[in-house]
């Protein structure tokens, strides 16, 4: 099966920045994730949302990359949330205990409604 390298688009919403993730989150995703996160931080949003609706593969290296984003968010006192995770990836967040620190929402509307205004 062909590898779908990660593509990330950054959107700005009134209550935070959204990273629309598309493809696979593995070791090759680091550059794309880091660059997108840095772009999202430019507006100094209180909340950054990760949109997983179009993500179809996450391995353990990919989870480590998400932990790296979370550490950056916590260092700058930002909240990092996720939405659009399939049941399988919610389970992976539970296995790795990422869910202890990243709030997971079913959709963008509910995620943004919990976010504080920028």
């Amino acid at each position, binding site marked *: 099966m062909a590898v779908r390298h990660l593509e990330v688009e950054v959107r700005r919403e009134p209550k935070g920045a959204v990273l629309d993730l598309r493809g696979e989150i593995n070791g090759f995703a680091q550059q794309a994730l880091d660059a997108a996160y840095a772009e999202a931080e430019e507006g100094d949003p209180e909340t950054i949302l990760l949109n997983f609706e179009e993500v179809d593969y996450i*391995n353990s290296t990919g989870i480590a990359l998400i932990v790296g984003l*979370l*550490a950056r968010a916590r260092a700058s006192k930002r909240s990092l949330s996720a939405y659009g995770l399939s049941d399988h990836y919610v389970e992976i967040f539970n*296995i*790795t*205990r990422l869910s202890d620190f990243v709030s997971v929402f079913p959709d963008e509307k509910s995620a943004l409604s919990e976010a504080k205004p920028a």
Partner: protein
Amino acid sequence: MTEASPPPEEKGEKQQPRDAAYWAKRVERLEVSAVPDGAANVNVQGRREVGALQGFGQLWQKTYRVRLTGVETTPEETVRIWKERFPEFQPPNSRFYPSMAGVAPGEVLFISASVGGMPVHTGVRVIYADDESFTVMTPEGHPESGWNTFSAYTDEDGTTVAQIQSLARANDPIYEIGFRIVGATEQERLWTHVLKSLSAHFGVNEPVTLEKACVDPKVQWSEMKNLWHNAGARSMLYTMAGPGRWMRGLMRRRST
């Protein structure tokens, strides 16, 4: 012990992502059904797993690499051998005891190590394993809270590179002090030894490189409570109680 997630797609069921078969199932607490010969199930049964976010100390990412120069091996073959011979590649003061199923999603590997001359019995669980990598996660009480990923890949010039990446923090304040004084260096020696052993298996003697970055410099005071599970302290008590256990066993055998 747990099983791997079921293979993707049974007829009529929603299709699972491609990675589903590689992840272990979630467990609330580690359950051990069989303890390998020589292993001590002192700090494994009933422990919760802890990741890079749950521990006490600074969060470090350390990446160790060795190039298998001049060897015709693929990343898949390298990782297959690594999984099969994982205990053999450890240094003498850090013994790993895999289950019969070996390195597979959901399996527990017991560890008996000697840290500064003190015994530490603990373990790790394989949370992810595919053809080119596997990841272990630590339980409560382990010196570290986090993951180690063992993998191989082909670099730009076609050489297979074996890599260990740890993303972890000390589990409690005692371990944090230990890591800052001497533990971090000991740990770096350990993983360097593992990569040296793996490369020696292929007849290669290349240097091991290490990149490290402090991902989160803060300690998490809310995790002070992890001291309760400290595997070093509990292993010491277990070792001190050894003669008592031996006596009780002897008396039991005589009475039957």
